[in-house]
């Protein structure tokens, strides 16, 4: 009996320790990744990186100025398309619910969210690259916006649902119409959460390269506007990392560090916005 108890207690201790070890292993992966990026990338993240164009293989130096601007352009346009659509669709799901249609939209949004980004790239390719007879920044933006819409929709819905029902009732009782209630009471009350969702969504699409490979393609030079192939940081990292040139590898590390800094900064600031809480008194 006593032996059995000792056995049970040691199993308990071993397994509980193991769960802690597994957690530590997972979290240490984050620090290993960050550490390695800083170790290999920091030295190359200099003024040239931000101001110069990539040089042809063999030449030393150069930077990724075009890819930085290109990423801003592609992600910026994707946000312009995706944020309003996702936001209003989210309002619909939370405020104008009619049961069957809303649950269909919700289900499809979740499925869209789980579709591999490369397949989303195929959609944008067939919609825009084929029609415009060429790779373009706007095709990349459309691909990214297709990824952004379901994220923003579900986040907006979720945070609007957390707005207490009594606030809506109060506004309606004061004689406000439904859309005024939504615009002046419900949305402002949920704004912090919605903003968080938008920041996280943009952070997520900024790092995507698969949907850009055959939509915005890449460009060694400055892009020629939104209808031309355009460089982006994630695609640049991919092509530079896969190339056989040491100096391009150096650039890839620098670009990796720049990209991760951006993505992590967005995630941390989103967390900070949300940590200050939902802007309405609960209950």
């Amino acid at each position: 009996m006593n032996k059995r108890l000792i056995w049970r207690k040691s199993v308990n201790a071993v397994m509980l320790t193991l769960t802690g070890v597994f957690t530590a292993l997972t979290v240490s992966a984050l620090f290993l990744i960050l550490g390695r990026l800083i170790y290999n990338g920091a030295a190359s993240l200099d003024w040239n990186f931000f101001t110069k164009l990539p040089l042809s293989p063999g030449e030393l130096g150069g930077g990724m100025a075009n890819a930085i601007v290109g990423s801003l352009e592609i992600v910026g346009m994707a946000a312009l398309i995706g944020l309003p659509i996702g936001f209003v669709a989210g309002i619909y799901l939370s405020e104008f619910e009619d049961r069957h249609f809303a649950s269909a939209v919700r289900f499809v949004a979740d499925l869209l969210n789980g579709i591999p980004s490369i397949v989303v790239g195929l959609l944008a390719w067939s919609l825009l690259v084929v029609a415009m007879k060429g790779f373009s920044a706007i095709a990349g933006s459309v691909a990214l916006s297709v990824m952004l819409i379901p994220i923003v929709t579900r986040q907006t819905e979720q945070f609007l649902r957390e707005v207490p029902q009594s606030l809506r009732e109060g506004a309606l009782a004061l004689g406000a119409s439904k859309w005024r209630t939504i615009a002046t009471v419900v949305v402002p009350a949920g704004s912090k959460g919605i903003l968080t969702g938008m920041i996280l969504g943009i952070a997520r699409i900024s790092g995507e390269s698969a949907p850009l490979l055959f939509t915005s393609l890449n460009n060694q030079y400055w892009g020629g506007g939104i209808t031309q192939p355009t460089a982006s940081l994630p695609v640049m990292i991919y092509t530079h990392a896969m190339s056989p040139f040491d100096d391009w590898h150096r650039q890839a590390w620098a670009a990796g560090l720049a990209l991760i800094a951006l993505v992590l900064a967005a995630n941390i600031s989103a967390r900070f916005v949300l940590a200050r809480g939902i802007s309405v008194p609960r209950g």
Partner: protein
Amino acid sequence: MGTVAAVRPSAAGRGAPTGDAIARWVALAFAASILVLALLLILQLWAGSADARHKFGWGFLTSSKWNPVTEEFGALPFLYGTVVTSFLALLISTPLGLGAAIFLSELAPARLSSALTFLIELLAAIPSVIYGLLAIFALVPLMRTTIEPFLKSHFGRLPLFKGVVFGLDYLTASLVLSVMTIPFVISVSREALLAVPREQREAALALGATRWESTWQVVVPHAKLGILGAIFLSLARALGETMAVTMVIGNSPSIRASLLAPGYTIAAVIANEFSEATGVYRGALVELGLVLFCLTILINALARLMIVATTRKGSKRA
């Protein structure tokens, strides 16, 4: 929303401007655009793969030829690579992730748990191409010089570890995928565990169970559907993962038993070959996209159903 409905008729009765109706239709149109997008996606995948579907029929799924020159295409090597790498990845990430989820939901003090959960969310936010960058410059050399020669010299008699060691193979791709899927396993199963009512734990402990016994024999079985959902959700992620896998799998359209041999996945072959393909070659790649789409949709839908079932169960009893 009962009260809202009760107020609306009086507003309408006043003959108020139709602002509400307009707002409703605009919002409806935006929401409907999500359905339209999904429909467009299916239509384009179906139409884009038409010539390949007509030429190869169902045989596309069982043929292992991939030859752009003779225009013979089959999906089998890619299906094989996709399934093998994802399965192996989950074999690693499931126990690790579940263990960590148990630690975060059952053992860690609230503050530590929320800090660690945030760090794990950051891990999930790292772009795929950065995993690929690290894999190709940090993991591949380690695999080639240390880990794989070790496996070969100790387990070389197994067909799993035969052949020349390059570092670019199924095993490396699976390891990268396992790190990428762990955060999903953790965050979804953690939520499933947290949805288990407190009384369940207290009852088990009161009966004299150790902490581990209460967790493993009461809490985990209670949340098993949600945990299964977490595993399926991660599986869907792994199946569609593109960049990191493309960079380390070796890109060889062949079926090998050895995990140390180079392979290919559906997502990787689309990423590598699509921008240069034309005609039936392009059709075959779109059809691969269609196959991947169906696979991930199926698994995602299953996962969602399981997760919804658990969270609902938990909240009802809480």
